[in-house]
C-alpha cells in the first residue's frame, strides 16, 4: 500500500531530511515516532501528497506520487487518503452533516446520505447530525473529524498527533476508535506522534531521528 525507498525532502538547500525506507501492506498499521522537528509531519504530508518535490521513491497505492500533476494529486488524495489532524479543522460555517458531505463532494464521489448516517451512528454522534459544528463538544468534534476522514472508505488513513492534546482516557478511546474503524474498512492507518502512550497500541513502529 505504501512503499518508500531513499526518500528525502529538502525545505531549502541547507536542511535535508532523509527518511528510512519502509513498506506497508493493506490493513497494516504503523506509528511514525520521533521528537518534534524530526520530520514526522513532513513524512506524513509527503505520504498524503500534501507536500511535493521529494527525491527518492514514494509509492502510494501503486502510484509514484511525483508522477502526478498538482490537480491529479488532489484527486488522488481525495480518493485514497483520509486525514486526521491534531486540531479538528471542521468548517465552522457548515453543519456536522454538511462537513461530512464535503469529503465525498470534493473527492468527486457519490454522496450517500445513508453512508453519512451510518458513519455517524458508528461513532455515536448521529443525534448531532444537524448541529452547527460550533455547538458540539471538543470530543464530538474530533469524532466528526474522524468521520470525515473515513467517510469515503479510503485505503489509507493518515493521522497527525491525533491524541497528544488528550487526557489518558480520551487518548485510549480515540486510538481504539481509529484502529477499529481502520480495521473495519481494511484501511492502512499511519499515525505520526510523539505520544508515548500509543507505543503499545501499534506494534509496527518507524523511528525518525533528528
Amino acid at each position, binding site marked *: 500500500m505504501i512503499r518508500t525507498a531513499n526518500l528525502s525532502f529538502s525545505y531549502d538547500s541547507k536542511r535535508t531530511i532523509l527518511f528510512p525506507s519502509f513498506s506497508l501492506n493493506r490493513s497494516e498499521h504503523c506509528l511514525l515516532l520521533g521528537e518534534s522537528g524530526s520530520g514526522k509531519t513532513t513524512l506524513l*504530508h509527503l505520504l498524503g501528497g500534501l507536500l511535493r518535490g521529494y527525491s527518492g521513491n514514494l509509492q502510494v497505492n501503486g502510484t509514484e506520487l511525483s508522477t502526478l500533476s*498538482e490537480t491529479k494529486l488532489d484527486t488522488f488524495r*481525495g480518493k485514497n487518503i483520509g486525514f486526521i*489532524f491534531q486540531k479538528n*479543522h471542521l468548517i465552522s*460555517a*457548515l453543519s456536522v452533516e454538511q462537513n461530512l458531505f*464535503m469529503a465525498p463532494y*470534493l473527492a468527486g464521489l457519490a*454522496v450517500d446520505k445513508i453512508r453519512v448516517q451510518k458513519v455517524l451512528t458508528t461513532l455515536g454522534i448521529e443525534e448531532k447530525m444537524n448541529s452547527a459544528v460550533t455547538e458540539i463538544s471538543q470530543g464530538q468534534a474530533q469524532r466528526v473529524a474522524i468521520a470525515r476522514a473515513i467517510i469515503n472508505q479510503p485505503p489509507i488513513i493518515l493521522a497527525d498527533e491525533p491524541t497528544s492534546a488528550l487526557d489518558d482516557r480520551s487518548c485510549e478511546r480515540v486510538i481504539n476508535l481509529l484502529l477499529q474503524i481502520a480495521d473495519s474498512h481494511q484501511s492502512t492507518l499511519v499515525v505520526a506522534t510523539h505520544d508515548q502512550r500509543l507505543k503499545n497500541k501499534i506494534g509496527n513502529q518507524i523511528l525518525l531521528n533528528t
Partner: protein
Amino acid sequence: MNLILLVWNYLKSKPLNTVLNIVLLALGIAVITVLLLFNKQLEEKISSNAKGIDLVVGAKGSPLQLILCSIFHIDFPTGNINLKEAERIAKSRLIKGAIPLALGDSYQAYRIVGTNKSYAELYDAELVQGAWWDGEMETTIGANVAEALKFRVGDQFKSTHGLTLGGHAHEEKQFVVKGILKRTNTVLDNLILTSVESIWHVHEEHNEMEEQNIKSDIDSTFIPSRLVASHPEGDSTKEITSLLIQYRSPMAAIQLPRFINGQSSLQAASPAFETARLFSILGVGVDILMGFAYVLIFISALSIFIALYNSLKERRYDLAIMRSMGASRSKLFISMLLEGGTLTFFGSIIGVLLAHGILIVLGVMVEETRKAGISGIVFYSEEWIILAGSLFLGVLCAFIPALQAYRTDISKVLSGN
C-alpha cells in the same frame, strides 16, 4: 453538497457582514437604476410629445418656457399672439402644417386646450368613447383626465381661469364631455381638448352680442381663417397662445426661425434645441447623483474586497482541509469568485428591484410623476448591463482573495507553521 451551497453557508455564517455588503451595493445600484429609468422615460416622453413639431411660435419671452408650455403643458404661457399675425406665418410656403393652441384655462389642474383636430392627429389619438369635439363648449378628454376625474360622456364641468387649482371660476359657461381618448402615453392623456372658439367664448361672454353682429357683417365675404375654420380670416381682435409648426422642407429650419424672430411681437422656439438645453441644465443634478451612486458602489466593492480578504485569514484551515479532501486549487479559486459574485448578484438584483419599487411608490404617492407618465413597471435592456456589470465587479473584488486561496500552501498551514 456543492460550491454554491458552500458559498451560501459561508455568507450565512456572517449575516451582518453579508447584509452590509449587499445593502451598500443595492443602494448604489438603486440610485443608478432610478436615474436610468427616469432619464430614459423622460427622454422617450419628450421625444414622443415633441414628435412632429418642428417649431413653436408664441409671444416673446423665454423660449424654454414657450416649449414647456406649448408642448409639455408644464409651464405657463409667455403671453398671447394675435390671430392675424399667426395666420400670416401659417400661410408661409415653408410650412406644411400649423396647429393653433389656446391655453389659459383648466379644470382640477387639468389643462383645457383650445385647438383643432390636427393636434390630436399629431399623437395618433383615437376615441374609446363618444365623439370628437365639434360645437362650442364641447370637449374630448385624455385618458388620465377621464380616469382621475371619473368623467363620462355627457358630464358637464365649469372651467377655472389659470392653470392651477383655485383660480377664478368661469361660472357662466359649462363645458360638456363629448368623447374620451384612448391612452396614448403622451401629454395628450392629461389634456382636455376643445375648440379655440370655446376658449374665446368663455373669456368673451360679455361681448357676445357685439361679436354676433360683427360675424353677420362680414358674412358676405367670409374667408375662413386657416387656423380657426369657423372664424373669418384676418381678425386682429382675436388671440391664441401659440402655434405648433411642421416644416415642409429642411430649408425651413434655417429660414423660418430667423424670419419669425425678426418680427417684433413673436418668437420661434425649437423643441429639439430647447429640450437639449433643458437636459444640459438637469444634467448637473443627474451627474451629481450619478457620482454619489458610483461612490456608493465603490465603497461596497471595497467592503466586499476587505470582507473576503479578511475571511481568508480565518479560512486558511478550511481551504487547506478542503485541499486535503481532494479539492483542486481552481475549485477554491472559483469558490472565492463565486462568493464575491453572489454578494454583488444579490446586491444588484435588490438594487434594481428597489429602484422599480421606488418609482412605483412615487407613481402612487406623487401625482406629478403619474402625470408625467413615469412608471416603475418598465424594464430596459440597460438593466441587464447593470446586473452583468455588478457580477463582474463582484468577481473583480474577489480576484485577489481568490488568488490567495489558490496559492495557499496546504502543508505549511496544516503543519501549523
